């Protein structure tokens, strides 16, 4: 499983990379592996605002459809239009070309509740131990 050391993480398996007052977010390598091949990503409109932990996107695989949550509150400034025609980028490069949205954070202090890479790695190991097969 790939982990990006520069990102912070939430328990619903999203990553966030902070760039000043802005941030980029997507789903983790573990999340894309659990979903299997992604076939569709529904993204919000630029300008929409979401609260911390609110669902802002939907990701569909042949197995299931899941909601994707914004790690901290903010207003969307850019969406990854490439996912429209190449949803497989989420599988191939979840921390890079498979990013979901860029947004302005409403309250950067919300970042304090998030896990760092080491804590997230431990969290996933526990999930796997519980998950069985």
């Amino acid at each position, binding site marked *: 499983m790939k982990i990006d050391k520069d990102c912070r993480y939430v328990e619903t398996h999203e990553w966030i990379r902070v760039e000043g007052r802005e941030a980029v977010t997507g789903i983790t390598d573990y999340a894309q592996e659990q979903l299997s*091949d992604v*076939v569709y990503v529904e993204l919000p409109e630029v300008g929409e605002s979401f609260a911390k932990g609110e669902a802002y996107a939907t990701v569909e695989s*042949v*197995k*299931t459809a899941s909601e994707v949550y914004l790690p901290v509150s903010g207003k969307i400034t850019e969406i990854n239009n490439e996912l429209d025609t190449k*949803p497989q980028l989420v599988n191939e490069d979840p921390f890079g070309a498979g990013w979901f949205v860029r947004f302005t954070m409403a309250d950067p202090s919300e970042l304090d509740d998030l896990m760092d890479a080491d804590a997230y790695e431990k969290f996933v190991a526990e999930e796997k131990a519980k998950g*069985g*097969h």
Partner: protein
Amino acid sequence: MSEPLIFEISSPGRCGASLPACDVPPTPLPAGMVRADLPLPEVSEVDIVRHYVRLSQLNYGVDKGFYPLGSCTMKYNPKVNEVAARLPGFVRTHPYQDPDSVQGNLALMFELQEYLKELSGFAAVSLQPAAGAHGELTGVLIIRAYHQSQGDGKRTKMLIPDSAHGTNPASTTMCGYTTVEIKSDGRGNVDLDDLRAHCDDTVAGLMLTNPNTLGLFDEHVLEIAELVHNCGGLLYGDGANFNALMGIVKPAHLGFDVMHFNLHKTFSTPHGGGGPGSGPVGVSQRLAQFLPGPIVVLEVTEDSCVCDAEEGEEHAQECYVLRLARPEHSIGRMKSFYGNFGVLIKAYTYIRMLGAAGLRQASEDAVLNANYLMHRLKKVYPLPYDRTCMHEFVLGGPPPQAKDIHTMDVAKRLMDYGFHPPTVYFPLIVHEAIMIEPTETESKATLDAFAEAMITIAEEAVADPDLLHSAPHVTPVTRLDEVKAAREPRLRWTPPQ
């Protein structure tokens, strides 16, 4: 064997019909509305008959084999239902007819309402909704109308356990409520602590599927009802799994305020492609005024009576007429006319053919069949919630020793053994879920054959995993590239360039 598309059979100049010469003056279409080409297939009558007969032979349905699709309840549909629905007295009526001239139709609807009331314990039933999720929408609209009638505008949340049917959150959202998910506990019941933490005066209600999608009867249903009622909410019952309970327990007695029935599951009317569905809604006394109308009511009367008494003669002792009525504070119509009437005939026939004892036995046999299969299969496949199940059960994927084998591979391999695969990857709370619902009409021989196929597949999964990865092998088409189909869908035929 694969069957070409009708367009690929087409040959220029072939025709399946010979029309007589036109005997009225032709009227030309307005210029600009005439198209130069119309690429329809050109085939003879025998071409088209053979094409569709061959396609029908490729079909797999419950009339062809075992169809243990969990959650969907693919019951056998008794043929007598079809006979009843085709009776000329029903077929040749029209929804615009004067109710006095279709008293037989209204009598069937009235009696069906009464049977559903008797089976569920509810005070009133509307037959309008056209399917299960439509019934959910109706039920949640009734809950909203109730809170509004109380002048209570604070309630914005609907609580939905993570073991509920997948349509519940959608129905809730359509009504403008916010969905709040409630966790399951280790035995597959609603987690009472999590529920308690969410019960407050913003809760409109809770939608409980019982038995839930794990096929388990919630052991805390009475406490759940109490918690929801104590915070002023109403308890919605998703009746999609009522086929495990009919004739045994009445949902109204468990504290449910409103519930929909799936006639196309519980009452053996066709389900899936053929349908259509039917999702009547039952409610407690305080909600009856909000039901969608019209419903059929019986009016004892000597005016406009339909008995044979002549003017001045004495009327039969119980002289009545059936009328269509709109409940006082009805949420309005949910469908044009009177619901899916043809489906109501089939469900009515099923109830009358089985009778009270037969309905109870259908539920008991469904539960017995599911438990028998579960006990055979749990020796080989993981069973995350190892409890006596109701009408269905959920396995936790392939045996752990089968590395690199997923639930999808097991499902595909089952087709090679001539069985329709069970529901897979649902419910979401079980990793690699395999959801099996045998239904009540299957013999022990069929259940054993299915169990043996599953056990053989578990052995193959270890000994020869590639056999599963490339399955199915004997079907008209083998393993499809579902990812490519979803990412690059070709939804229609286009002429070759």
